[in-house]
């Protein structure tokens, strides 16, 4: 069997809130192969956001190991983790998190700026991304001049501009109406069909059901790990 893209073993994460301790994640073991489409579901407080932050290297586990593409990433320094985020992981947020003073094109280029990609190369890739996501006429618009759907498309363009292996989407349709949300999720699914591993955190059952695999979280533990056989064989 090929090495999994993601391999979590015995992950523990505890938060201290004053005197009380909150077990956000307890003894979590998960393997996700490259190219999978996974929905992480569960009630609020079940630890799904903590899991996403952990997968995105924004947070460190208190115990356990996290191997990404065969490498133990929990032992990396903060700067090394930043580099891994830059090159291998794309984030899509519920509230888009676009920089308000930058144009759509500049927001899309931001990860490349941070990675020190040459301006000529940046322009090329931004132009292609704008075309791919139907934002050509919006390149010089600032976020407040864009609709919700356009904003999320800018955010997805930004998340994919570094050609990551993994896209982490946290309630990507949470701030959008149903039709726009549908467009956005189709975009993400298209990326997945192109080979990118897609992990979506949601408590929308309908949205979760579209994924090939659902991880049901409850009280910081993996409650259920369901596969949609039909999709897999398709």
């Amino acid at each position, binding site marked *: 069997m090929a090495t999994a893209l993601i391999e979590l073993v015995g992950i523990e994460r505890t938060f201290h809130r004053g005197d009380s301790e909150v077990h956000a994640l307890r003894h979590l073991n998960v393997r996700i192969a490259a190219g999978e489409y996974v929905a992480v579901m569960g009630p609020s407080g079940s630890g799904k956001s903590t899991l996403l*932050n952990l997968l*995105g290297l*924004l*947070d460190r586990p208190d115990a356990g190991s996290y191997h*990404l*593409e*065969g*490498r133990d*990433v929990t032992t*990396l320094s*903060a*700067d*090394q983790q*930043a*580099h*891994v*985020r*830059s*090159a*291998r992981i794309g*984030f899509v*947020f519920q*509230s888009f*998190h676009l*920089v*308000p*003073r*930058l144009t759509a094109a500049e927001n899309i280029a*931001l*990860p490349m*700026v*941070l*990675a*020190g*990609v040459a*301006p000529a190369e940046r322009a090329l890739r931004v132009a292609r991304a704008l075309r791919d996501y139907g934002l050509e006429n919006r390149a010089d618009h600032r976020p407040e001049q864009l609709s919700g759907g356009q904003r999320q498309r800018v955010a997805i363009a*930004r998340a994919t501009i*570094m*050609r990551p*292996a993994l896209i982490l989407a946290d309630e990507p349709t949470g701030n959008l109406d149903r039709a726009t949300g549908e467009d956005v999720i189709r975009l993400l699914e298209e990326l997945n069909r192109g080979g990118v591993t897609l992990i979506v955190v949601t408590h929308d059952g309908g949205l979760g059901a579209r994924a090939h695999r659902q991880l049901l979280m409850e009280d910081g533990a993996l409650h259920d790990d369901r596969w949609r056989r039909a999709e897999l064989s398709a």
Partner: protein
Amino acid sequence: MSLSVSGAVRAVGRVRNADLIRFARAAASGNRLRTSLLVLAMAIGVAAVVVLTALGDGARRYVLNEFSSIGSNLVIVLPGRSQTGGFNPGNAITSTPRDLTIDDAQALLRASAVHRVAPLAVGTSEISFGGKLREVIVAGTTADFLEVRRLSLAQGRFLPAGDWRRGASEAVIGAKVRDEMFGREEALGQLVRIGDRRFRIVGVLAATGQGLGMNTDELVVVPVSLAQAMFNSNTLFRILVEASNREAIEAAKTQVGEIVRLRHEGEQDVTIITQDAVLATFDRLLGALTLAVAGIAAISLGVAGILVMNVMLVSVTQRTAEIGLLKALGATGGTIRNAFLTEAAMLSIAGALLGFVLGQAGAAIIRQLYPAFPAFPPDWAVLAGLATALATGIVFGVLPARRAARLDAVQALAKR
């Protein structure tokens, strides 16, 4: 060009400096009011340094100019010893200093390093002409006084050269005395009464305006022998000695001291000061003053620095979500720190440059208003002001930048 995780750990580059500057500029222009207030505060600090040091250094130059107008290469002999070299039992017995006399002055002409000598006896008296009466300072001296003091004449001639012990009853008057005594009348050739003697006016000094020391505009110059007779004394107030050149000043001082000591029975009972020494003292004094003023002005730069820190801290708080995002997009702590430091530095540089322009403009206005006052900020002060502004901006920018770099990405992102 997809990288593996292991490749990414090594291969991801750093943010380009040009991008860092562009990003910081965009961030700074994002909040115009905050940015302009900050730049203004920094500008006021730098402008204060520039203007105040211009004033301080202007005062120093002004005084130096005034001194050099007294005459160059000047060595002045005063009766009495002002500096004692420790207690000498002999001094306790012969405590009265000998007076300076015309003979002493004349003897100084023998010194090789001495070019000219002008004895000076000074007192106040009254000058009267045509029913007008005025109190004047009478200076008794000789022909060389004009050259030694670098004075010039407006009309007529100066006292004639000749025997110092004898002198014709001729007087040269200052410009103000001429105006007040004679008005529109011709002063040359007129007979005036000074004290109880009659003098003929032979010359009028050119107006010099207000200056340090004696104001020559209100002076009446007469031959030294007549002045001594008028004041019933045979002592001199000063002997002005002009050294042959600038290098000879020290030699002249030594020679003059030696001659006077020999003439005064081996006792060093005069004080000899050189213009250089006086100048150096004033130079030091006013230089220190300028420095002190610069230091006070620098405090305002410190205040501006604290303002930079405050504003940047607020900025970090306001942009918490953005910082979280940058971290998620792969920015290292160092990148975020550099972005904020760059912004603080840019604001400081902008403020410093604006302050430099404002300060120079202020100094120019002062020079315009008071042409006699050379209010030029010294280069060192300008450089120090700019450097301090930059340094405080960056130093006080470090704390906010570090705070930004250390923000927890998860919590930062959770904030809208």
